[in-house]
Each structure stands twice: as structure tokens, then as C-alpha cells.
């Protein structure tokens, strides 16, 4: 059983489209991170959210932490081929950290 469920598992879109991926859990997390991993590389941290309801923006990426701190979303506006990669969420609960399985995003030119 995955503590963090990510959806969708796969997403294939055209350049310029908007998209949202989700990270959900039945547990309350004290913080949540989003990473992007490109083929042949390790994950790279994009953002950390710690406060329920928090919204953070990173250029065309918008991250939101749910009010109850059990879920998070990542919204990408006007996706570009360079956004292609595996998006992973990682949450901290009860002193341990867990990764979700990720959403594999492919953006076609």
C-alpha cells in the first residue's frame, strides 16, 4: 500500500496545454515536497510546502497543499516539452519520509 497516491500515473499532452497532477494520502503530512526526475538523472527538488492551504508558484508551475495537509496538487500552465519528466511527491509524516510512485508527464511539441 502506497502512503502517497499520485494521479494520473501517465499523462501525455500537447505543448501549450494546461495540466494538473495530484498527490493524495489518508495521512496528515507535516510537509510535502515535489520533485522532477528526467531520464537517467536523479530527482531534483522543485518546492516544499509546509502550511495547510499554502500555494507556491515557480514560473509556470503552481503548487498547492491541501487545507488538511493530506493532499497536494501541481498545476502547469502552457506546458512545454522541457516539462517532460517524472513528477514525484514526497511527504513527511511521523518522522519518516515517503515518495509517491510519480506521474510520468510527456509534452509533445
Amino acid at each position, binding site marked *: 500500500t502506497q502512503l502517497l497516491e*499520485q494521479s494520473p500515473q501517465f499523462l501525455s499532452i500537447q505543448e501549450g496545454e494546461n495540466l494538473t497532477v495530484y498527490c493524495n494520502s489518508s495521512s496528515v503530512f*507535516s510537509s510535502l515536497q515535489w520533485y522532477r526526475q528526467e531520464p537517467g538523472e*536523479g530527482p*531534483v*527538488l522543485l518546492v*516544499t510546502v509546509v502550511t495547510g492551504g499554502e500555494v507556491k508558484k515557480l514560473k509556470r508551475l503552481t503548487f498547492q497543499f491541501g487545507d488538511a495537509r493530506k493532499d497536494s496538487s501541481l498545476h502547469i500552465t502552457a506546458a512545454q516539452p522541457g516539462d517532460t519528466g517524472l513528477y514525484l511527491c514526497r511527504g513527511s509524516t511521523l518522522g519518516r519520509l515517503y515518495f509517491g510512485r510519480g506521474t510520468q508527464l510527456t509534452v509533445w511539441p
Partner: protein
Amino acid sequence: DAGVTQSPTHLIKTRGQQVTLRCSPKSGHDTVSWYQQALGQGPQFIFQYYEEEERQRGNFPDRFSGHQFPNYSSELNVNALLLGDSALYLCASSLWGHASTNEKLFFGSGTQLSVL
């Protein structure tokens, strides 16, 4: 400023063999964590080393062991390899003492292990 470096990048072994993977943390970091990432999955935490001691361990058998050296570099050893051990092994470095809520991991590019 060198980031996290791992060696080798690729490795092919047969069942029953033993393997050692190596990691040098980012300059200034003192904590090393190891992760196993199977194809299509997220990274699974193996263990974490700080001050040359294993501090936390995930749900992995004793066949997986590690070591940290005084210069903070680390090794991951896997004995009696199984086909299911085939995966990308990632090393991540961080600073001990940062609250887990703000722990920022820097990952290496990984070692792709194939067990035949």
C-alpha cells in the same frame, strides 16, 4: 562545487553475486541516504548514514548494508543478488540537523543495476 556523484553508472551482475555501489555527497553535506527505484516506481528509502552510523532504515532485508567514511562518502553493499534487485540505486545527500520537514535532498544520477 561538485554535486552528488555516484559510481559506477551501470552495472551488470548475476544472481547470487555481491555488489558495491559508491557515493560522494555534495560538498558541505554530511548525511547520505540510499534509495532503490524500480522501473515505473518512486524511490524507496533503503537507509540513511550520518557520522558513520546507520540512523534510519527502510523495509529492506539485511542483504542490503552500507557504510559511511570519515569524508562523508558512502557505499551500498548488496549480497546474494536476486533478479528483483534490478533497479536504479540513487544516493542523496543532505545536512543533518535540518528538520525533516525542510530536509532538502540532492540526488546523484544513480547506478543502474541489472541482475541476470
